[in-house]
């Protein structure tokens, strides 16, 4: 078999040989024809070569060299060299490169040119990717934020979404977890605009909403990322209301093939590990819990008795023994009894100091004038924080982008992506693991002195064990195969008329396999002199279980676009119109078996036949859209554009299926006016722009549930046990709602772009107002529960969102030192305008008029009692006149209890004294400060990032059930040191003041050194001797320093109780080699 397959691939014999020869001939024939066509047009041509150098005299690669007024163009190779055919001697060569001033030269008699690039601070010729096309930045009228792929590649993050924060004004990224495979950031464009789904539309190489999103794209493959924040997204219609992120991947260029290889080795660690109490501190608080169960009058006596003898006889003649006796304290402190009285640091025992990660990338770029290609291979490997970690992420990816100029009128482009993502975990999730780390008693061993794992905390969950493969494994493998093809046909008779056909075929497969087997912890015989341990099985203590699942999806998009560009006199117009048809289908299947006779065979067939289970599901959907754009400008001075989309979606009943979404943008380049040019010298350019758009959001969901098909009356499946059998049942879902439709956004934007000081300083300002209506929400405020209805959500919610963005950049050079400094920031604050309020709610509790919660539906979490200090002593309590029975405070006003404010002044503390918070967990402001320095061969890039305006409710599982935060210990109310700020020790939130209140809610404002990179590039003279065209080494880092008031968790934490895998800081070294 093996030989045969070799033959097949080598094509050396048999039918395969015939095929390859036949194909070869065909290719020769076709190629010859094309060559003939080309040569026919090559008369009168002048062949020109040259070298382009950057401002430091080094060869500049990737610089565009074009012949003005034609489509002829090449880019320079790694040596800065180019070679191009000019049509005649009057031809003008144009040299342009992002960040540099363009230069022109008449060909004349010369055949060799050398150019030295000059920095252009204002990036005047920058081209920006917008929906279905590109636009010159100077004439851009929408609010579009842009970041280059090369900037994103400076971050060592393995997840692209983590490289965005602080780079794009108006884009908020919050990273809630560092767990390999699930470490992405939640991205919000201009904050949140709806109670429903706030996810932006992500368009990759022209294809919207591709499976897998942007998280796992290889940053080395990315050319640029554009974010359409306003009406400029209207061309994406019903999916654009939350903003649109356009990602363009790199493509080939003509020139000598260039092969580059890069390797990154990084080390990740948690940014913050919660500080917990040590054994003595914990024991102290555990004793306090017992004491505080007594009437306060006995506290002092009980405390003294616990400290001296460890037992206390109550006034009622009951004997109470301290959980920890004086002798225990002595042993915890002196460490004399490692078996019975340890002082365990659970986080330190279970987590490594640094966890390795690596990235390798191989990229080939090249091509001729007619065929250009880019091929890229990537590999990533990311380890978990745990010692002997079973957690990790691996990725293999490949991308091929090819462009062929078939003839003068026909271009063909093809993109192929293949990616495999391997996620692997232990059988207990990170939430359980970190829950147990938070709960782990410092007074108990994690590992016995003999090296064996000590008992679990609960449910077999012993972090030392369940972080490893000893419990089995949980694998999740995802495969992506994405292709897109593009055929561009220019019309030879009508200049400027072009047809484009796009097709994309995205296949997604997922395989999950969860194998759970018994694991072991060890019990100690409680004998210090003669310690023995016994193994105890945990988990499915008898036999392993296996759960396996597979899902697949196929998304197909077909698109046809016609476009026309024309200039007459000073009038320039562009027209574009297109149609897109999208279909998607998917299904899911899973199977479960248990009673595996042995842990040796981890395959389904080997499991027991009894109680095996299977399940499955499927879905399908379709969209049909028409869209277009008309642009007009006069002398590139007065600019206007109209965008539209007519969207049709399967989610809505036939009569309401299509919606129309228009947008208008306009601009005025004041600096092109003579009165301005003549009078204002220090401003090089100034543009005012404005936009309005009506955009839609058809990703409609309510309470986390997608509302697809809610216009149909359907019953969902359930089960019940009848006559010793499980039977299927049917349950009514939400009542059908015929008028269900999309959310509508009316978004207004006003902006200003300006460059000053010889284009060295650039300023962009934007202010916006977004009005979202038709948000899906239940009108539950009006329907009592007696209605019995599972209320459908209807398009009733309204939210307003207002804010601003700013971006300032300054570029300059002092001698050999080139530097740039940039500041960007965006602020967005939303307000609920209509919400189905429960009648009778006081204004300060209503959702209306206040900010949305981070997770819609957790609305009541926004209501909190107003903390008002502590009852410091009995005198304080005696002075109290408020009635606390309404919060369960009857008979529980003791020294160290919290005071709440009587908000409605009725003398009673109850539910009506809760006030709705005006902050949520999403920052209202996020910004960045970038600094770039380049000195000879060295370069330094730094990104500081800040976020403000968010808060987090922090409350941990503590007391008899788990450890306390160090912060709680340090500041708590005690008999000896009665705090007027922190309450006394409580057990498991069992006090009325454990209810959500402002004491536990803390600001999460922060500033962090998000990203830095220091690099050294080997001068090209040296490189050449070694046969290397470019060699660079660098060190970069992520989240290496943080300044925050909230010091318990990472400031980006979204978890109240710390049961989550903390965010990462990463330090990384890399090398980049180009041949």
């Amino acid at each position, binding site marked *: 078999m093996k030989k045969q397959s070799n033959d097949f691939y080598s094509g050396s014999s048999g039918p395969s040989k015939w095929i390859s020869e036949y194909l070869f001939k065909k290719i020769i024939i076709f190629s010859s024809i094309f060559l003939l066509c080309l040569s026919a047009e090559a008369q009168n041509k002048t062949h020109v070569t040259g070298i382009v150098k950057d401002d430091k005299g080094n060869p500049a690669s990737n610089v565009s060299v074009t012949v003005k007024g034609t489509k002829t163009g090449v880019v320079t190779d790694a040596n800065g060299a180019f070679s191009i055919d000019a049509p005649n001697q009057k031809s003008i060569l144009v040299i342009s490169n992002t960040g540099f001033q363009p230069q022109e030269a008449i060909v004349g008699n010369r055949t060799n040119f050398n150019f030295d690039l000059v920095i252009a601070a204002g990036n005047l010729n920058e081209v920006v990717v917008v929906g279905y096309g590109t636009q010159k930045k100077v004439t851009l009228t929408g609010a579009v934020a842009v970041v280059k792929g090369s900037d994103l590649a400076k971050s060592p993050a393995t997840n692209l979404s983590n490289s965005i924060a602080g780079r794009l004004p108006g884009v908020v990224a919050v990273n809630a977890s560092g767990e390999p495979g699930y470490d992405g950031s939640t991205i919000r464009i201009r904050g949140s605009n709806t109670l429903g789904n706030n996810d932006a539309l992500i368009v990759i190489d022209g294809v919207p909403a591709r499976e897998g999103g942007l998280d796992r794209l290889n940053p080395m493959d990315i050319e640029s990322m554009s974010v359409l924040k306003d009406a400029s997204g209207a061309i994406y219609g019903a999916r654009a209301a939350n903003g649109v992120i356009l990602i363009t991947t790199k493509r080939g260029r003509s020139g000598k093939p260039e092969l580059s290889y890069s390797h990154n080795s990084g080390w990740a660690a948690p940014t913050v590990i919660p500080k917990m109490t040590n054994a003595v501190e914990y024991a102290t608080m555990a004793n306090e819990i017992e004491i505080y169960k007594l009437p306060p009058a006995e506290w002092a006596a009980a405390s003294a008795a616990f400290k001296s003898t460890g037992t206390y006889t109550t006034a009622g003649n009951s*004997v109470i023994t301290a959980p920890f006796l004086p002798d225990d304290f002595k042993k915890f402190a002196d460490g004399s009894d490692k078996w019975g009285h340890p002082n365990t640091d659970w986080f330190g025992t279970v987590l490594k100091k640094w966890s390795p990660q690596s990235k390798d990338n191989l990229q080939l770029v090249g091509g001729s004038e007619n065929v250009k290609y880019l091929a890229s291979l990537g590999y990533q490997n990311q380890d978990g924080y745990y010692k002997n970690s079973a957690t990790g992420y691996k990725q293999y990816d490949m991308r091929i982008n090819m462009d062929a100029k078939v003839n003068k009128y026909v271009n063909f482009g093809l993109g192929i992506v293949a990616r495999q993502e391997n996620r692997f975990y232990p059988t207990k999730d990170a939430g359980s693991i970190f829950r147990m780390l938070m709960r782990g008693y410092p007074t108990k061993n994690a590992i016995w002195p003999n090296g064996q794992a000590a008992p679990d905390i609960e449910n077999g969950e012993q972090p030392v064990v369940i972080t490893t493969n000893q419990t089995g494994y949980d694998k999740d493998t995802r495969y992506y195969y994405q292709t897109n093809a593009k055929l561009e046909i220019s019309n030879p008779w009508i200049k400027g008329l072009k047809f484009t056909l796009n097709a994309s075929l995205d296949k997604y497969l997922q395989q999950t396999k969860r194998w759970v087997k018994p694991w072991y912890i060890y019990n100690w015989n409680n004998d210090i002199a003669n310690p023995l341990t016994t193994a105890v099985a945990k988990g499915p203590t008898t036999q392993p279980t296996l759960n396996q699942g597979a899902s697949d999806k196929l998304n197909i998009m077909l698109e046809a676009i016609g476009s026309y560009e024309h200039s007459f006199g000073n009038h320039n117009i562009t027209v574009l119109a297109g149609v897109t048809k999208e279909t998607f289908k998917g299904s899911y299947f899973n199977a479960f078996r248990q009673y595996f006779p042995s842990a040796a065979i981890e395959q389904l067939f080997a499991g027991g036949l009894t109680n095996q289970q299977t399940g499955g599901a499927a879905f*399908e959907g379709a969209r049909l859209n028409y869209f277009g754009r008309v642009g007009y400008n006069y002398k590139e001075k007065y600019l206007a554009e109209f965008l539209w989309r007519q969207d049709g979606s399967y989610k809505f009943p036939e009569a309401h299926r299509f919606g129309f979404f228009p947008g208008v943008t306009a601009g005025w380049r004041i600096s092109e006016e003579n009165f301005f040019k003549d009078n204002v010298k220090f401003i090089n350019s100034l543009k005012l722009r404005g936009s309005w758009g009506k955009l839609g959001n058809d990703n409609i969901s309510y309470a986390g549930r997608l509302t697809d098909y809610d216009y149909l009356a359907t*019953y969902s499946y359930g089960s019940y046990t009848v006559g010793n059998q499980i039977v299927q049942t049917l349950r009514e879902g939400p009542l059908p709602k015929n008028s269900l439709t999309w959310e509508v956004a009316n978004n207004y934007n006003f902006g200003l772009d300006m460059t000053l000081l010889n284009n060295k300083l650039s300023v962009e300002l934007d202010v916006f107002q977004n009005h979202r209506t038709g948000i899906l929400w239940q009108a539950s405020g009006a329907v*009592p529960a007696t209605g019995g209805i599972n209320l459908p959500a209807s398009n009733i919610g309204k939210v307003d969102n207002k804010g601003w963005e700013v971006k300032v950049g300054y570029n300059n050079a002092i001698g050999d030192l080139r530097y740039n400094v940039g500041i960007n920031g965006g602020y967005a604050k939303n307000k609920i305008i209509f919400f189905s309020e*429960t009648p009778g709610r006081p204004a300060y509790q209503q959702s209306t008029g206040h900010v949305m919660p981070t997770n819609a539906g957790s609305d009541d979490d926004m209501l909190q009692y107003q903390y008002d200090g502590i009852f410091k002593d009995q005198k304080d309590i005696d002075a109290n006149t408020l009635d606390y029975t309404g919060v369960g405070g009857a008979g529980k006003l003791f020294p160290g209890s919290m005071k709440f404010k009587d908000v409605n002044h009725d003398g009673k503390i109850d539910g009506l004294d809760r006030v709705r918070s005006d902050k949520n967990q999403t920052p209202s402001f996020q910004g960045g400060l970038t600094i770039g320095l380049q000195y000879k061969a060295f370069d330094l890039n730094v990104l500081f990032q800040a976020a403000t305006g968010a808060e987090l409710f922090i409350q941990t599982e503590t007391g008899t059930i788990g450890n306390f935060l160090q912060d709680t210990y340090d500041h708590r109310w005690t008999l000896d040191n009665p705090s007027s700020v922190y309450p006394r020790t409580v057990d498991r939130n069992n006090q009325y003041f454990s209810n959500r209140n402002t004491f536990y809610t803390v600001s999460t404002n922060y500033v962090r050194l998000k990203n830095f990179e220091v690099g050294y590039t080997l001068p090209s003279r040296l490189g050449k001797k070694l046969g290397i065209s470019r060699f660079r080494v660098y060190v970069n880092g992520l989240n290496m320093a943080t300044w925050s008031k909230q010091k318990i968790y990472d400031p980006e934490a979204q978890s109240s109780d710390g049961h989550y895998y903390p965010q990462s800081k990463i330090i990384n070294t890399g090398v980049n080699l180009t041949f």
Partner: protein
Amino acid sequence: MKKILKTILIPLCAVILVTSCNKDFLNTQPLNVAAAGATWSDASLSEMFVTEIYNGVGEGYLQQNSLDNQTDNCLFNFGRQSIMEGNISPDNPGDRLGTMEWGNMYNRIRATNLALQNLATAPFAAAIVDGLKGEVYFQRAYYHNQLLRYYGGIPIIKFAYGLDQDYNIPRSTYEESVKAIVSDLDSSVLLLDGKSLPQGRASKAAAMALKSRVLTYAASDLHDIPTAKQNSTLIAGFANPELLGYVSGDRNARWVAAKAASKAVIDLGQFGYNLGLTAPQSKADAMSDYIKLSLSRNGGEKDAIFGKYYINAATDDWGAWYPRNNMPNGYHGWSSTEPTQNFVDNYEMMDGSKFDWNNPVQAAAPYENRDPRFYASVFYDGGAWKPRTTDGATFDPYGELQFGTYQTGTGGGTTVAYAGLDTRNSNIENWNGTRTGYVIKKFMDPNPAIVDMNQKQEVPTIVVRYTEVIFNYIEACLQTGDEATAKSWLNQIRFRAGMPAITASGSALVNEYRNERNVEMFAEDQRFFDARRWMIAPSVFGQKVRIMVITGSLKPGKTVTSYRYSKDNYNYNYHVQEIEQGVENRSWNDKVYFPPFYRDEISRNSKLIQNPGY
């Protein structure tokens, strides 16, 4: 010409290709649900809809926070019960059972109305339609009654609301509510007559037994407003007492009706396990029978009239996790429901006398010679249970419960305190340990393979059982002056439990009856309502929880290295004390007779009158 083809026609064709196909492809279908229309024209699908409604029964008495935790019988291990502290309000209603929960019940009631509405025009066989309707009438009555017995009179809803209607609806009076429920039950009896349905579905007998419950409650003190007013100033001062009970009418007639309803179930002759004994059976037999009844197996199923069943192959029902939720922490359970000393004291001595802490012999050995049902219902110190898991077996290879603190070492010499495995100072999951010194044992499958928190059990939760009907009958007999019949039935239950006959009469007999009902139907969601309708709740629910503290001291000269219960080696001290008020500070307030409606519900339904005291 060729160029024209290439440049114009191809793109044009392509555009046509993409757009020309009609828009039918947008009419995709949901693939994971059934269309409502199709359901009601198909008998099997209709049956599936009706079957789903039973899920509203929830986990019955097998749910983790059993309703007996809101009575003097038990204490919940995880969080104070505000209702027991007299401390509930429209904002802070405390823990409520899913199967009494307002919105949940009305959602199920809606489903019954929807079913009746659609079954009226069902195109399939009338016999099938009638059977389904019979079940649905039962369901509608059951869910309405769940609310009625909790809140008092409630809106009785016999139609399915649509969207955008006027949803304001007043409470029916207590009397109207009872009438409506009984009327549904009578319909159910008619329609289900002669039908034999599998376990888990309602039957004619279930409807009849539920009627016995509804009418027994209706005749009770709490719902006879003249009586209730005498016992409670809060009720006396309430402007709408008709919502809470009968403001007028012949109370005796209500008892007669209740008696007849109960008698009708008895006369079916279908139910009852080992009744009809004429003398107490042995302790062993009595225990064994009591366990059979509580597990509904080996004959005990003859007592079950309607319930929810669990099988291991089923989806993850919480009630099937009863062993994990309720075994002691030394067995890796959560000890969720802890019998109080208040309750344990209710178990009589085997000779029928009351247990007495002032009797030194009884006080020194409180777990000896007690009612056999004690041993079958409660885990107590020294009692035997299953072999422990390996970790527990290191300390206790015998499978005996350890709820105390014991000396190890040598009596009179060096001793070390050893905290029992099932206490809050245990080596195993001590935060789940009991606070009262007891853990519930009733309903627990004794199969030794169900050993820790990883195994489910297949014990059903019986929400309507024959024993209750017997008790209802006894109560009605007592109230209508037929002591002889009452005593005869009461003693049949006692003989089955191994206890001697009751000879008392008058109010002493009523007290004996009440204690017997509570002991026999311990933890079956009865006490919550019984203590209320008898209006004894202020005295019994208002008491502080009493707990048991056990210490074992080595007898002089005895040496023990690894603890085991032994009267030879140890002197045991049984000390009863009140629980720390920080855990649960019980106190009665008359307003908790009828729990409050949520504030939001009152705001949404302007016609809903709040219960008194809120």
